[in-house]
């Protein structure tokens, strides 16, 4: 095809640029060619999909940045949660009122967390993730609440495990202010699923997960490929010893 267009992608980050994405989709429609330079080959799967987990642009969190990296890690998780609950409240009309009251509050909290980190990190350290939920039916109460509980439990374990890498007492306090709200959410959502059981707090101590363990779990729902540069060499386990 003599008029075939070529799009040059040299940086994985270009995929997160709306203009780039538009061009990408246009090219797919007209049979254009995309040249991926070696720098981005590792961030894309071989089926040209940009919607599957980990198939999008590479998001690298560089722990050499110190507290900034921990805040970016939290920002990624809060983006996922905020996006999830925003989709939930758009589709939860058929849920019982008690569920809707909790989910509507949680959605606001998570959007506030996301916007807080966006403001605190500033443009230089910011990024926007693309999410994916596979075949999740957002109008199915059980599916939605189960994934909500998964996200809240993961968030609690993530903050509890990452706190050890924070060097500023101010940032440690901020993380503490958020993690207990995530734990309140986790409790409430488990209570909606299994009321009057021990599901709201099944263990005496919450989990504390190392960042790589959290990233592996979160990756299932994130199109961008999460990677760490200069990851911490050591991890101090919490009482459950499962991080």
């Amino acid at each position, binding site marked *: 095809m003599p008029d075939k267009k070529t799009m040059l992608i040299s940086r994985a980050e270009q995929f997160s640029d709306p203009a780039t994405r538009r061009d990408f989709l246009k090219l797919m429609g007209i049979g254009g060619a995309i040249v991926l330079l070696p720098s981005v080959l590792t961030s894309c799967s071989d089926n040209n999909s940009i919607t599957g987990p980990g198939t999008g642009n590479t998001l690298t969190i560089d722990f050499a940045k110190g507290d900034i990296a921990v805040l970016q890690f939290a920002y990624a998780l809060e983006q996922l949660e905020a996006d999830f609950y925003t989709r939930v409240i758009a589709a939860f009309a058929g849920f019982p009122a008690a569920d809707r009251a909790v989910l509507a509050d949680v959605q606001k909290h998570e959007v506030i967390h996301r916007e807080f980190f966006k403001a605190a990190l500033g443009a230089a350290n910011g990024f926007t993730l693309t999410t994916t939920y596979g075949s999740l039916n957002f109008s199915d109460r059980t599916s939605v609440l189960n994934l909500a509980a998964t996200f809240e439990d993961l968030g609690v374990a993530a*903050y509890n495990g990452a706190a050890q890498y924070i060097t500023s*007492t101010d940032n440690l306090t901020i993380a503490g202010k958020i993690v207990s709200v995530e734990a309140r959410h986790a409790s409430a959502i488990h209570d909606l699923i299994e009321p*009057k059981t021990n599901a709201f*707090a099944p263990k*005496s101590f*919450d989990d504390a997960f190392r960042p790589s363990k959290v990233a592996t779990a979160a990756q299932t729902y994130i199109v961008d490929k999460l990677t760490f540069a200069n990851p911490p060499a050591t991890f101090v386990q919490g009482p459950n010893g499962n991080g």
Partner: protein
Amino acid sequence: MTPKTLFDSVDPEIMSRLDDRQAEITQGASINGKLAAALALGSIPIALAALSKDVFGQTPTDVLDVLQFALLLEYLEAEFYSRGVAAAGLIDAADRTIFTTISAHETAHVTALQGLITGKGATPNAKPAFDFTAHGNVAGFNFSAGQYETFKVLAHAFEDTGVRAYKGQAPRLINDKPVLTAALTIHSIEARHASEIRRLRGKKGWITGNSRDDLPAFTQGIYDGEDNVTQGAVNVSTLPGIANVAAATEAFDEPLTKAQVTAIVTPFLA
């Protein structure tokens, strides 16, 4: 002993901050008692030892202080719930699993804190005697059948206190990662408990503004400051797309200082 040898044995960061303190010391200003006594004895090492804690506030002594303080709160909760679940006819049968779960957790927290204290080579403080009427503020409460609503009110107050207390102490643990991580995994469990009990009482699982909901007035200190909307340098009540003051206060739990928590807990000490 030459000054060089002496200083070599001291954390270099102390030396970097010593100049500021030295100015104060030579001016005779704001010398704490231990430091004054040490200087009076002419002992530089003792003066340095006093300074190191004064300057940093994160010596092992502080970690132990946090652990003993947390142990006091856990003793309070553990005794409260263990008496509650043991009391005939107090807790509604349908809610029993909730409270036996929480009771077991608080007892486990006591054991864990005692172990951390022992691990630091110290002795855990003994459990004090408690007065769950808070010296008459909760008149007549004695875990009797028919007092379930009052029992839940106290549980609501204790759990919200616990969350804020641990949060306030976390910065003092920043240099002791095992203790910090252990404390945080207790902190978030207290938040799970708080949410459950609040919801059991028909309230939201999170704190709105500085509202104590329907708790008695003497508990207001547990909620003072929860209406804060400034996080770091960010006003979280006016963020793009989500300008909501109530939600902004709910989205962040606030810490309490040790002094604030002590003021809340003291009425419950016999």
